[in-house]
């Protein structure tokens, strides 16, 4: 059975220290979360899946 997550927004953050992309600020099932760019994180993996499927766009921070 497919595991469903309701992701309604995603915004790319920038690390103030390095200037590199840092966590994504995402609203998942109604909760605002900072999601690290880690493929082992299930939320990040689902964000990437939805972006590749054209179901979600990550906004610039």
């Amino acid at each position: 059975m497919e595991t469903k997550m309701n992701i309604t927004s995603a915004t790319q953050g920038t690390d103030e220290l390095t200037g590199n992309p840092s966590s994504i600020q995402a609203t998942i099932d109604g909760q605002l979360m900072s999601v690290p760019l880690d493929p082992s994180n299930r939320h990040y993996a689902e964000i990437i899946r939805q972006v590749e499927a054209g179901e979600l766009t990550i906004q610039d921070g």
Partner: protein
Amino acid sequence: MSKARGLADLGNAYSDGALSNRNMIINGGMQVAQRSNRSPGGFSGSFYAGPDRWLVNRTGTGTTGFSQVSSTSYGGTKAAQATFLAAAGEAYVVTQRIEDANIAHLAGQQVTLSFWVSGSSDAGSATLNATLSYASAPDDFTTETTISSSSVSYSGSAAYYTFTFTLPSGAANGVGVKFEGAKTDATGTFTLTFGGVQLEVGDTATPFEHRSYGDELARCQRYYQHVQEGGFTRIGVVPAITTNREAPFKFTTEMRASPSVSVSGGTAYFFASGSNDTPSSSTAEGITIHGFFQKSSGTPSRTAGGTVAMDNWLITADAEL
């Protein structure tokens, strides 16, 4: 003591369930519930709630609840209870995903699953499947392969079941332990209650292994941490960028992976002036398996070096599979 006597005593201890760390399931006794119970209503799809480590998933649009309940009929003092509202034909799965690091050593071996379960009447349907599956890649449960599935006919009274499975080599990627079925009645409420879930090596189910609350909590915190403090919690200092209040946070235990973090709190208090303000946003930066750096932004300018405290501070960190 002779060697034969020692082995006999060891055998007796094993039969009595006295040997520790047999159970591959975390929170099988449903003791730990860091998240709030979730009542059905407005929720569909998959979620974690109530007892730690159990993922609830359901097809369709019917809403689902999941809660920790008190009962001595399921092998301990707590149990998990899933509540399904309409509609008919919608499948459900309640799963615990065991990460590869904790199960790889059992690939190729027999394991035995034991548990207590009961269910409410649902238009005559009183069966579910106890299923083991394995992940397609290490800790990647996007797609799973079923190892074996055994049917359970349950009633309104808690009953004990055991099943033995042989784990294939693919189980080294991680194993899902599932209770799955479908709601058959178009209306009404269907509840499924289970507990005392144990997965152990061998072809024999031993008595449920009771672990201390602290031990079980620490195991759960590898996957999820919920930190909530009432009143004021001193968390850091105002940095040179005086519209920010920043603070490092260390997790209680190392987490499985870099977690998703939510930060909330009522009011950010700035002690140097005795005044307070509400942050416009609180985010986590530099997230690792060990901790992160909290940054709360607000409009008022503060004096660098002042102490920052949060009122009703709440941190959640989610590294579940």
